[in-house]
């Protein structure tokens, strides 16, 4: 591999990682509370409010049903407003974050629902407030499962970031399309694919290890 290819790859990898990390952090910050909201406001939840629950669920479903590539184009005005531009790595973070929020919300919802209701009930019987139940029961009990679910989201983000790259976002996807495809340099295409595979494997491995370490249910 020639030095210029290597440096191209490293630059693209850096951009991909930046897109994934920033979008993931931002989407987690909003998506986890969203998941908590979906569970606790449902009928019989500790903050039961079925009207709010249905409204939030409808919005979540609406965003999730838009294919990423369309979402990305559809929200260009919004992206420009937030990032100041509609092309490049920074701009790509906006649709990546937006698409991940409802995804994380649903994943976290699934994790929280796995917490046995008996434990919630025991906390209620001890006089816990809804907030204490969220912070001291739901989140710690579901943490290993949430970590496993978030790993899936990170991997999905790697894929979506490549798509974002294809329309001018930079990163590994951009590299593969511009050099590997348009300039017909198969060795770059191959190298990109290998880096992507390695990246996904690494994320999955780290996610599994962390989830396992946190899980005290099977010891």
């Amino acid at each position: 591999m020639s030095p210029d290819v290597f440096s191209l790859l490293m630059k693209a990898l850096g951009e991909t990682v930046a897109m994934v990390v920033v979008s993931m952090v931002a989407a987690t910050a909003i998506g986890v509370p969203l998941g908590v909201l979906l569970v606790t406001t449902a009928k019989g939840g500790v903050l039961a409010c079925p009207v709010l629950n249905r409204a939030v669920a409808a919005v979540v479903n609406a965003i999730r049903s838009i294919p990423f590539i369309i979402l990305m184009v559809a929200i260009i005005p919004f992206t420009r407003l937030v990032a100041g531009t509609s092309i490049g790595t920074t701009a790509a973070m906006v649709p990546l974050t937006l698409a991940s929020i409802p995804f994380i919300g649903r994943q976290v919802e699934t994790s929280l629902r796995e917490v046995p209701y008996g434990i919630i009930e025991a906390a209620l019987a001890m006089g816990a407030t809804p907030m204490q139940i969220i912070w001291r029961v739901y989140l710690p009990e579901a943490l290993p499962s949430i970590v496993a679910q978030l790993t899936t989201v990170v991997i999905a983000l790697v894929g979506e970031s490549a798509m974002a790259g294809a329309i001018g976002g930079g990163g590994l996807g951009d590299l593969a399309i511009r050099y590997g495809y348009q300039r017909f340099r198969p060795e770059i295409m191959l190298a990109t694919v290998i880096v992507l595979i390695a990246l996904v494997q690494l994320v999955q491995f780290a996610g599994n290890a962390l989830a396992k370490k946190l899980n005290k249910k099977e010891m």
Partner: protein
Amino acid sequence: MITLSHIEKTYEGPDGGVAALKDVSLTVAKGEIFGIIGLSGAGKSTLVRCINLLERPTKGSVVVDGLDMTSLSAAELREARKSIGMIFQHFNLLSSATVYDNVAFPLRLSGMDEDKIRAKVEPLLSLVSLDDKANQYPAQLSGGQKQRVGIARALASEPKVLLCDEATSALDPQTTKAILELIRDINQKLGLTVVIITHEMQVIKDICDKVAVIENGVITESGRVIDVFTDPQRPMTKEFISVLMGSGLPPDLQNAPISAEPIPGGRLLVRLTFVGSSAGEPVISTLIRKYDVEADILYGNIDSIKDTPYGRMLIGLSGTADAVENALSFLREKDLRIEVIGYVA
């Protein structure tokens, strides 16, 4: 300590409501161990959950330690719940927290500082004999140990009442015994009022002072355990007791036809139950001496309920119709319970 008056609970379902409790009233005195027994689906869990309002009764009032629970605000109710401990069939421990942290949980909810928490949790762990497991997770414990953690957790906030919903149903008989002993110990040491839900008569017999039998959401029988045990009224109560003690008929009589009318040359089967001090009286010898009857002792055993001894005996009386009649009247006057079963050949 606990007074439930005219509790009704109806669960709304897609095809109408399910009436889980119908006009249930009961009183549990301070320091008492009160058992509630019934078949699956009878409404036991619903009843016990109405005490700490995990389930809000559709109608009726719940008074615990002078507080009318149904009239409290959400914050007041949370405060009131801190003086009502609860343990569960499936323990409901936090799987992500150590034994120590599980017991500390209710104290942390109240914002107690860590030094004080330690000063409370450590003696509790000793009380339930789990000092050496403080840093283990629930997954590393046996069922009996998990329930001990549940008990320590329930006691951490120094409750006045302990509610136990099938607390021993997931445990083997030996562990059940140990857990029940622990509950009885705590009841005596701390003067705690205990409500125990169970479907096993053995549990009632081992530690309860009073019992209520619940059938289809209605309390059909209640009173002191010794009274209900020795003189059950309802078929279901008899059934519960016979599961525990057998029918009390010797094998050769179990399938014999029993007739309500005298059979020439036959015997009248009578079951006698002696309670407390009367267990020692020489009733049978007097009976044989004074009345011209023969009394064969077909079965007998002595047992105790909590600390009261009681005995059950099955006798076969034979003699002239008059003699048997007189003998029965004599027995009826004595301080014991008699149940006339019928005549056998």
